[in-house]
């Protein structure tokens, strides 16, 4: 049973992690596409329309992979986590179905029009298509985060006599403090991925001295939006999330921070390796009293360590949780430094000639992906050992009749399929970047020209 549980967990973890590579760029780029289309509408300059078309091609490829890897997620609740679905389907099924009904229809309908219908729609119509694609993708994010937020901080439900979890208040499921901050934090992460990708492609063009006018547009858009997002990521959203965790999941906070002992004036660990057996942190580099201040705004406040909780309440992968959290925060700090410095250079008019900064922007491109993944790992590993915090343990949620052999079979299948998909995606996106924004007479992603004949 133990092995089956682990394989099912790995199954979900692998497929969701791979999937989330794509929507984070989709949601980030959707916002930047609206930015480019707005510029085009305001300045009436074909340059911005070309730029938008170029990114729309990449968006299209990325969206397609996001859709095909997203469909399995919706089904896996039932296939691999049947006991969880049976107990909580009345609640989380609501938000998941709303995602399908409210955002997928919107997104897929208008993406078709956005990609294939620029001539038919006209300038203003095409801006609306971009806007609705953005709205659809961000609504989609909202429903998913709302689902996760309920698992982190269950509210608006009631447990009946058979152990069935029923919805009791629609609005508290959909609108609560946890979903608000988690959504803001997640979306800013997605915006940063979009910005870093756009800025990196721009920097690549500037450094290789190709499509330079577009290079400048991309770097500028990426850096301006990215600097704002990077700052908001830390404060207030990251800070507010941290406080919610301190209040509602204190044992998670202790594990994330690697705090084994309850202390007054707890330090903030920058680097160090947790040794869970010996309950201590090796080679720590710390900022004294900082954790107490960040959590409670008092330098000497007491922060509960892992020792304040019984071991069966501890997350089961403390070291991994600790690293996920530290990688996320470390990278977030680097993003602020890079983006703010680049924004300063942009303001002084020196950015496009600063080779060092352009190199930095270009090389940063994998980092937001890592940070977003690490952030989600922090949320999900931090929730353990609970599937629904305080209500249902992860071990009680798996499908009782799906054996280890079958779970491995499909996990291996997904791994093989996703490797191929990942290579194809990289290959096709790289080709678009190589082709550049200037040659856009034919939309690459369009199967053929559709004309009304009658």
């Amino acid at each position, binding site marked *: 049973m133990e092995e089956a549980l682990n394989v099912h967990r790995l199954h979900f973890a692998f497929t969701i992690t791979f999937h989330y590579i794509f929507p984070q760029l989709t949601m980030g780029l959707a916002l930047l596409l609206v930015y480019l289309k707005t510029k085009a509408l305001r300045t009436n300059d074909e340059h911005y329309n070309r730029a938008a078309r170029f990114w729309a091609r990449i968006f299209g490829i990325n969206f*397609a992979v996001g*859709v*095909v890897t997203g*469909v*399995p997620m*919706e*089904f896996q*609740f*039932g296939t*691999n986590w*049947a*006991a969880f*679905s*049976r*107990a909580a*389907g*009345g609640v*989380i*099924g*609501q938000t*998941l*179905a*709303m*995602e*399908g*009904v*409210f955002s*997928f*229809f*919107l997104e*897929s*309908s208008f993406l*078709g029009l956005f990609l*294939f*219908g620029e001539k038919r729609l006209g300038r203003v119509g095409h801006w609306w298509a971009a806007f609705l694609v953005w709205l659809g993708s961000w609504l989609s994010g909202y429903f998913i985060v709302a689902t996760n937020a309920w698992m982190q901080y269950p509210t608006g439900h009631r447990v009946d006599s058979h152990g*069935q979890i*029923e*919805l*009791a208040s*629609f609005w508290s499921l959909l609108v609560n403090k946890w979903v608000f901050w988690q959504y803001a934090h997640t979306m800013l992460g997605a915006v940063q991925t979009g910005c870093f990708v756009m800025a990196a492609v721009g920097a690549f063009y500037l450094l290789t001295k190709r499509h330079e006018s577009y290079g400048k547009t991309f770097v500028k858009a990426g850096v301006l939006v990215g600097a704002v997002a990077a700052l908001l990521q830390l404060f207030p959203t990251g800070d507010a999330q941290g406080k919610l965790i301190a209040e509602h999941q204190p044992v998670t906070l202790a594990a994330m921070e690697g705090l084994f002992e309850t202390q007054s004036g707890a330090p903030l660990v920058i680097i160090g390796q947790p040794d869970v057996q010996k309950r201590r942190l090796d080679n720590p580099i710390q900022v004294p009293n900082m954790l107490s201040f960040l959590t409670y705004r008092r330098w000497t406040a007491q922060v509960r360590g892992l020792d304040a909780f019984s071991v069966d309440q501890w997350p089961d992968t403390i070291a991994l949780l600790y690293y996920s959290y530290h990688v996320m925060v470390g990278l977030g700090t680097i993003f602020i430094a890079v983006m703010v410095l680049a924004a300063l250079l942009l303001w002084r008019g020196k950015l496009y000639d600063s080779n060092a900064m352009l190199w930095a922007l270009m090389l940063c491109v994998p980092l937001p992906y890592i940070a977003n993944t690490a952030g989600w790992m922090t949320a999900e590993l931090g929730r353990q050992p609970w599937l629904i915090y305080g209500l249902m343990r992860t071990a009680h949620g798996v*499908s*009782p*009749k799906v054996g280890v052999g*079958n779970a491995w079979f*499909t996990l291996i*299948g*997904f791994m093989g399929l996703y490797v191929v*998909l990942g290579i*194809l995606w990289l290959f096709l996106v790289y080709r678009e970047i190589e082709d550049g924004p200037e040659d856009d*007479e*034919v939309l*690459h*992603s369009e*199967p*053929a020209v*559709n*004309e*009304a*004949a*009658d």
Partner: protein
Amino acid sequence: MIIVYVLLDGFDLGAGAIHLIVAKTDEERRQVLASIGPVWDGNEVWLIAAGGTLFFGFPALYASGFSGFYLPLMIVLWLLILRGTSIEFRNHIVSRVWDPFWDFLFCASSLLLAIFFGAALANVVRGVPLDASGYFFEPLWTDFRLGEQTGILDWYTILVAVLALLALVMHGALWVQMKTTGPVNQRSAKLAANAWWGVLVLTAVVTTVTFQIQPQVKENFVTWPWGMVFPLLAIAGIAGVRFELVKRDERKAFFASCAYLTGMLASVVFGLYPLVLPARNPIYSLTVANAKAGDYGLKVGAVWWTIGILLAAGYFTYVYRSFAGKVVIAKNEPHP
């Protein structure tokens, strides 16, 4: 909702399954793809939305159905992934190895999906080995007989799967016929006319066998004779397809095929009611009453669901109208 999915994705699945047969040249193949290009992923969204609706409306059905059909569902997911990528990636590169590869994959995955969907439906009608825990697990096949330990595939489910494939081939061919001109149009018409005979014969066979296998169906039609409207709709639909094919009215032929599929599926739903997932041992069957979610959730769901679907119907009408009419591929169009 599932019916809408079958009608919409049905034609693009069917179009995929006949892709290699009706379209011989690259230009013709692009013509077929273009007929479904702008709409296929919207159609697929209906599947996701239907899954989600099942999830919050009937959590117990969702949980035992999905975990019990674990293997076929996973295979369906892989096929959906392959099919989606074939449609999206094919036209990015022109090469003697790239396009034919995706064409083949598109055709093969569409074909297999039609078969799996048919088999899945047949499994539900036949009943599954649910036990007291409320769960079951079926391997892909056991001994192909309708015993206690059934597999996903047995003679009955394979029979229905073939019917599903033929019906969707016909449906897809009628769609392609409606959306195209020239040789593709003629070949589709011919294929639809040939598939029609198979659909006719198998519909008769499957219907007869189903009455033997699932006693609930007969009971329902006897108790509520008004339910006969659904099979009558199917019969009218299939007759209509023939009639309109002969008259060469392409639009009406496609809509007749829609009527046939609607009639068939509605008959199944009506025939099984109140069962939603019959068990081989009837005492463990899941019914509407024991699989549904709490009342409050269902009420709330019904409100936003209606709003959402009305909105969706609005976008769909708009998109279909934007891409209405026959697909035209200019001869000298620069190939991407």
